[in-house]
Each structure stands twice: as C-alpha cells, then as structure tokens.
C-alpha cells in the first residue's frame, strides 16, 4: 500500500477531475475547468513517480516525453475540422493502454510461478496460497499476486482487457471513417448481427474461462476477440451517427480505466474512470437526443434497409441554379438573412469569407444571424467552435429554437455547405431515416439559397426535397469560391 500523503494527493486529483467536468458543463468556466483537470492529472502522475517504487525510470520518462510531445503536437497542429477524429484516436489509445496494463498485471503472478486452481470460488485457496514458492519475492508481493488471482480482481481484469480492446479497435475504425480513409457510410453484410452476437457470446464465454483459470493466454485471446467486437460494433454505424459512437466509446474507455483501477487497487483510477464512464453515458444520450435518435437505434439498425439506397448518387431532377451576381442581389435587397452553416463551410475553410460577406450585408443594413444546428459540423457544438475561430460574435450565433423563430420572418435562408440539418423530410416523411431529428426550418424563409458543390446528398446520404422547392436557388461550387464570388459581386453593386 502506498503512503498516506500520496493517497491524499490522489483524492485532490479526483476532486480536480470532478471540478473539471463541472466546469466544462458551462461556457464561462469551461476553459478553467479543463485546466483544473490537467492540473489534477499532472499531480497524479508526479505523485505516482514519487510514491511508488519505480524501476526503469529513464525508459519510462523517455516514453512519457515521447507521448507528451506527440500528443501536444497532434493536438496543436490538427485542423479544427479534423478534431473529431483526433478525439477518437486519443480515446482509442487510452483504451488500448488500459487493456495492456491489465494484461501485464495478470502476467505478474504467472511469471512468478503462482497459479490458481480452476473454478470460481476463492475459499480454501488463500489458505494454502503458495508462500513457499516465493522465488525471491517478499511476502507482501506474493499476497498481492495471490490477490490478483482472486475471482473479483480477475473479473475486473477481464473486463478491462475486453472493453479496452473494444474501445481501441472501435475508435480506430471511427477515426478511419472520419478521416475518410474508408467509407463513412454504414458497412453491413448478410448475417452481420448474427456474427456480432456470436462474437459477444464468445467474448463473455472466454471472459468467464479466463476468470476461472487466471490464464494469461486466454486473456490475450479475449483481447483479440475484443478487437474484433469493436470493429463489428462500429462498421454498421455511418454518417452523422459516428460522433455519437465516439462518445459511447469514450464512456467505454472510462469504464475500462475504472476496472483497471480496481485491479491495481488504485482509487484514483477507479474514480476518474468511473466519472468518465458515467458522464460519458449521459453525454452520449444527450447527443443522440439532440439528433432525435436513441443510442440503441444508432448501434442496432439505424440507417438500415433501403434508407440509404441511392445514397451518394446525384439526382437528375431539375433544379433552379443561379450565378453569384443574382444571388448577391437577392441578399443585398433582403431585410433579414439567416445563414445556415454546415460541414461544407468548414471543409472549404470558408469561415472567414462568410464573415466578410455578412459584414458587407450588415453595412447595407441587412439583419443577419447564424442558425446553428446542434449537430452542425461533425460533432455537436463543432460549428460553434469553427465560427468562433473566425471571430464571429457570439450573439449572432442563434440556437435552434431562436433560429427557427427568426427563419419564419427571414427573407433569405443562405444554406452554406449544410444539407441534412435543413431536410424537411425529418418533419414530413416518417419513412426517412432522419425522421424525428430536429431540423432548422429553412423552408419557412421567403427564399432559400443553397451553396453546394454538387447535387450529391449530405452526410446521411438522403436526398433533400428542399433542393427541388420552387423557392430554392442553387449556387454550385466550392463554398469558399462561391462566397468569394458573392463578396466581390456585393462590392460592385
């Protein structure tokens, strides 16, 4: 057992984590909250180096330096649009680390030649625990190793290994999807759910077997099955649901870390992991709710069947398109324009150009606001971050309810690189996979202008009826190029 002062420091660190989550829940305190969390983590790590008897110090510090530089550089350099996949990646490596830690802990008694008799009962075993075969280990070390092989600790070990592996591979797949290294669409194959079910049953069976025997080999096989389960879990999830799965896997990693804390008898890991597991679960539900979905529908059978049929293909129905000059005139002589920004805006890095356009319009006396859908961008709240980066005043960002009120009286809704979040099918066609998702009622505005690259459907892969509405005008092209053209057209009016 480690020194009391160190345990007290762990309590302080745990309080820091609680305050961090609390702070992160409110815009005013969010940044401070994050710093408090970072301080807690730093304290915990420093205390660990001092309080535990740490060998291989040079190597460990080297590894820490390597990870710290890599993590900080990745986090600093990544484009804000690529943030969601980076978070997925960080989450995955955390899960992987937890699984490795648990495996190594389990291997310790085996390497010392201590095994446990097969079965689930511990009674009678502790009595004859093989103190005699000490092999250079102290009595307390041996007692610790015997404890590692108790049923309770082995259960926690198996849990950490399995869930950590699921989180690692699942997050890796979400990373690949969001980075567009593989298709972002749901991947299903015949019998997929049966295969997944079989893998889950195998995982539970293997887990029980590993607990009953304390076998390292079985635990490694369990990790491999976990990796497979993670891949199968995420493959059928596609489109706008991917971020919700990141949040779910985040909660998973938290639980894996918590169980790892039980294995290591480290209360800090237990508390930190549990906090993340619990808050992550709530957050996942809140995110799913913002999209009008349930978590189970996302994981099992969302976007299934014919819903994405024809997804990714351009429709050849007639639409009305216009040049930048016509659109500029529409905007300049409107009284109120509501901008609906979407991921296309961010991809084109057009946040600054849209701001220029809005400034020009405001100079002409046009009232302008930004309607922010909760899941605009690739993650809830992502769009707020992207627009804030372009120094767009906070007051101009309208949350959905306010925005929908404003859209009713707006002359023009300018939809830039968004699609699914203004698709009226969410309100009107119960058969649509996005039915029930709250949307921005761009169709209530006097006129709608879409800046789009092509007629291809949005992230969810569903055709948008609004594009064919008589009130709608389309301006084709890359968002940034179109906005630049609009700006120069406005200037010359």
């Amino acid at each position, binding site marked *: 057992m480690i020194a009391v002062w160190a345990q007290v420091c762990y309590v302080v660190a745990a309080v820091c984590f609680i305050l961090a989550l609390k702070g992160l829940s409110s815009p005013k305190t969010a940044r401070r909250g994050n710093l408090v969390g970072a301080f807690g983590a730093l304290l915990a790590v420093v205390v660990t*180096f001092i309080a*535990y008897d*740490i060998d*291989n110090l040079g190597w460990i510090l080297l590894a820490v330096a390597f990870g710290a530089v890599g993590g900080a550089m*990745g986090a600093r350099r990544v484009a804000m649009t690529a943030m969601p996949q980076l978070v997925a990646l960080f989450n995955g490596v955390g899960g992987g680390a937890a699984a490795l830690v648990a495996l190594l802990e389990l291997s310790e008694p085996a390497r010392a030649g201590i095994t446990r008799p097969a079965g689930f009962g511990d009674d009678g075993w502790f009595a004859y625990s093989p103190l005699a075969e000490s092999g250079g280990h102290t009595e307390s070390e041996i007692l610790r190793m015997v404890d590692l092989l108790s049923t309770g600790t082995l259960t926690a070990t198996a849990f950490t290994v399995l869930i950590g592996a699921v989180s690692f591979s699942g997050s890796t797949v979400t990373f690949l999807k969001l980075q567009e290294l593989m298709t972002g669409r749901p991947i299903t194959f015949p019998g997929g759910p049966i295969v997944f079910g079989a893998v889950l049953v195998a995982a539970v069976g293997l887990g029980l077997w590993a607990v009953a025997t304390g076998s390292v080999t079985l635990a490694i096989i369990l990790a491999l099955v976990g990796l497979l389960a993670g891949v199968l879990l995420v493959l059928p999830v596609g489109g706008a649901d991917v971020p919700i799965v990141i949040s779910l896997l*985040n909660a998973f990693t938290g639980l894996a870390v918590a169980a790892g*804390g039980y294995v290591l008898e480290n209360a800090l890991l237990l508390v930190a992991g549990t906090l993340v597991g619990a808050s992550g679960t709530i957050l996942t539900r809140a995110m799913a709710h913002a999209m009008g979905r349930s978590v189970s529908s996302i994981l099992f059978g969302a976007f299934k069947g014919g819903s994405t049929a024809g997804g990714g293909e351009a429709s050849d129905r007639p639409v009305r398109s216009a040049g930048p000059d016509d659109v500029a005139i529409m905007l300049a002589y409107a009284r109120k324009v509501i901008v609906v920004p979407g991921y296309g805006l961010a991809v084109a890095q057009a946040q600054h150009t849209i701001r220029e356009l809005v400034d020009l319009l405001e100079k002409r006396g046009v009232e302008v606001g930004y309607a922010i859908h909760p899941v605009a961008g690739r993650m809830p709240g992502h769009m707020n971050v992207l627009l804030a980066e372009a120094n767009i005043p906070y007051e101009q960002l309208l949350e959905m309810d306010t925005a929908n009120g404003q859209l009713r009286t707006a002359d023009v809704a300018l939809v830039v690189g968004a699609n699914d979040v203004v698709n009226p099918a969410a309100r009107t066609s119960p058969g649509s996979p996005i039915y029930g998702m709250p949307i921005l009622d761009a169709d209530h505005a006097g006129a709608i202008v879409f800046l789009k690259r092509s007629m291809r459907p949005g992230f969810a892969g569903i055709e948008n009826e609004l594009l064919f509405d008589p009130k709608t005008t389309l301006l084709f092209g890359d968002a940034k190029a179109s906005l630049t053209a609009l700006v120069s057209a406005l200037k010359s009016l």
Partner: protein
Amino acid sequence: MTEGVALLTVFVLAVFVGFEVVSKVSSTLHTPLMSGANAIHGVILVGAVIVAGTADEAGVLVVALIAVVLATLNLVGGFVVTDRMLEMFGARRPEAAAKDGAE
C-alpha cells in the same frame, strides 16, 4: 475482501457524481466536454507507469512502455485539444484573427 468492498463503494458513489455533474450541459459544449472527459481517462498513465516501474523482463518492459506512450498521448493530447477548442469560446485574440484573415 473489505478492500474490494471499499473500492466498490467508491465506484458506486463516483457513478452518481458522474451523472450529476454533467446533467445540465448545453449542446454547444458537448464536443469540448466529451474531449475533456476523454483526456481525464488518460490518467490510466498512472497505471501504465506503475506496471512499467515493476517490470523485470525486457518483454514486459517493452509492452508497458507502449502502454505509457499510448496513455500519455491520450492524457496530454486530450487536454491540449480541449483547451484549443475552448480557446475559441474565450476572449477574442485580435492578432490571431488578423493573422488568420491574411491567409
């Protein structure tokens, strides 16, 4: 086994704290909150360091060091990327804005 029960108690209480602490969060902050929570579980670094610190074979040490690197990536990267997101919500930085605008 009282040690185990004590840890179980801590676990149950932490579940309730975790539920409670994020119960009222605006959707604007979902992404930073997720990212911040993600950073917090990087504290598994503590576990990785403990395991690496007791490794007495080269093979074990190598695996433990991999765990240390992965956990540090999670911990440091997580807090830095969260801070970067939240920076955008905070005070405006005119010089940075000018630089961005010039691109």
